[in-house]
């Protein structure tokens, strides 16, 4: 056995792989199940982007809060939300993380520090400023991380949040998940300030761009940013350049993508394949150990789908429960 050349020990390397594999399996399965017509609403799949959520979340604990996007399944899984509850939520069942009332775009689990997927683009940014402010007052060392896409970065509230985070020196990380498309509009067309890092610079925040298909690049950069934020060093922006294997939503014909783009990305820019190959070649985790994780995750997702399908729908009486909060 070779010595481990990575910044994570074997257990954490396997944990990172398990998380990425769980997200992949979850999304690939949803792609199949959604086509059957049993799932209400829309689903937006995260497959191809797993290294970003995982590389960041490996540095977080339940005290840290994240705010996600409409494409939030990967963030939820990486933050530790129960996969069975997530699947049930997506099927709109009473056993779901939000009792079946939120669906794919509103999965939340505050106990895990997951403030919610969000159908409003960019809306996670002010939420984590609140979380960051709370952490600062409590002095618990917590950080807030918000994810948004290249399209949502044009939203005013994202820019206002960067300003707020900068002037209040909040422990907040802004993560731009740049998959090259705002829904179906190419980044090249829609964004006047061409670099997301330039946005951060405008508010005095350090901004870093990494290859989001490289788990280790995300892990290392995010680790430095999160450590800095915990120590009072302030907010920062991380842009992860990555690819999404599916369309903007399930059912999207993806006519805006180049011919063969998805196949090329699956072959050459698959973060999971890149990670597994690198770790295997270094002799730290064996192919059999990875295969065992694959089997375990396959069974987990199979069971999550079966349980979700079998679970009851919420009753009409529950329509207004858990919706409003009394102060």
């Amino acid at each position: 056995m070779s010595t481990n050349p990575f910044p994570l020990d074997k257990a954490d390397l396997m944990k990172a792989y398990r998380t990425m594999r769980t997200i992949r399996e979850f999304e690939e399965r949803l792609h199949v199940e959604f086509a059957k017509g049993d799932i209400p609403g829309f689903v937006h799949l995260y497959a191809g982007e797993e290294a970003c959520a995982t590389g960041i979340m490996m540095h977080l604990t339940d005290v840290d809060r994240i705010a996600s996007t409409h494409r939030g399944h990967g963030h939820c899984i990486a933050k530790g939300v129960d996969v069975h509850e997530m699947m049930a939520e997506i099927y709109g069942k009473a056993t779901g993380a939000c009792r079946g009332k939120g669906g794919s775009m509103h999965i939340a689990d505050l106990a895990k520090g997951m403030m919610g997927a969000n159908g409003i683009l960019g809306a996670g940014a002010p939420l984590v400023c609140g979380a960051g402010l709370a952490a600062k007052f409590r002095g618990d060392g917590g950080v807030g991380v918000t994810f948004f896409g290249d399209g949502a970065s044009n939203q005013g509230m994202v820019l206002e949040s960067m300003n707020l985070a900068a002037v209040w020196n909040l422990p907040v990380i802004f993560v731009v998940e740049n998959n090259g498309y705002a829904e179906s509009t190419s980044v090249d067309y829609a964004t006047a300030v061409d670099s997301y890092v330039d946005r951060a610079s405008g508010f005095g925040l350090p901004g870093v761009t990494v290859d989001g298909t490289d788990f280790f690049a995300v892990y290392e950069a995010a680790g430095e940013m999160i450590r800095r934020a915990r120590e009072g060093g302030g907010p920062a922006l991380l842009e992860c350049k990555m690819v999404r294997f599916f369309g903007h939503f399930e059912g999207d014909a993806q006519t805006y993508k180049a011919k063969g783009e998805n196949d090329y990305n699956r072959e050459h820019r698959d973060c999971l394949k890149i990670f597994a190959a690198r770790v295997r070649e270094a002799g730290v985790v064996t192919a059999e150990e990875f295969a065992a994780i694959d089997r375990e995750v396959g069974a987990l997702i199979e069971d999550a789908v079966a349980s979700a399908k079998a679970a009851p729908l919420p009753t009409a009486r529950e329509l207004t429960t858990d919706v409003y909060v009394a102060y």
Partner: protein
Amino acid sequence: MGPIVGVIANPVSARDIRRVVANAASLQIADRANIVLRVLAALAACGIEHVVMMPEHGGIRGHVMRGIERSRNQGETRFPHLTHLDMPVTGTAEDSARAARLMHRAGVAAIVVLGGDGTHRAVVKECGRVPIAGISTGTNNAFPEHREPTITGLAAGLAATGRVPAKVAFASNKRLDVVVGERPAEIALVDVAFVTDSYIGARALWRTETFRELFVTFADPEVIGMAAIAGLIEPVGRREAGGMMVSLAPAATARTVLNAPIAPGLVVPVGIDDWRRMPAGIPFHPHLAAGSVALDGEREIFFDGREPVSVTLTADAFRTVNVPAVMQFAATHGLLRAGASLLATALA
């Protein structure tokens, strides 16, 4: 048709983790485009009529084309005819290398490069004997000299048009060649560092305890980055024969500790065990058994002891526009005096 000059402007240089672990600058895209416009105006003022640029998706192109259009709307003729190479854009260093290869093939007279050490390395890999004129828009910028880009543009233009003799206009530079096993050779323009991290990750070097060996083409006490370590021990000029090799160790156990500026604003103790001059043409073999090789400050290759590793200094490896020499020649020969050249018409 007169000489064509190439411009390779990297939109993603100065974007790495050194903005967080150090106080590195983050040059905005609009500023990079503004630099390109200054260079274009200077090239046109020297009589360069056609410039070809690398396409990119970072936004430089849009700002540059807008700037040219605005100037044209005002009836000005300050800019040369600008075209972009027909090539795929990947958003990686491969774009700079591919653009250099295509420009080399197209026979450009010079290439103006906007980027840091990594961008210049990518260009030099593929530009052959085409001279480059570097503009520092990266992080450490140990290779490109710091200078107002208008002057770099003027010098590139004067050199490309042949109005300054080649022996004055161009300087030869050293290069480091790194070979790991059977893999294709890699190059570095300033430094090759061997560090104990065996992964590429965020690429940059800042954890000094991982530094083990360093090879440099030149050691300038006025630069930052890995080359600063060598520069502060024993300066070696860019034009001087040979380079230098330094053995590094964690500061706690090293024979000597040097406070070196290894990144912008990051002056930290670096442990040094030994150093010696590195003659050209002789392969050096690092002692580190496993780790990664950082080329010009960025981890690029990992190795694990199963493959032999060598570093060799090559003299006269590539050419650069010698900006001070060109401008000195221009001054003493009146090249920029009205009526002395195409300059007068270009400025009219």
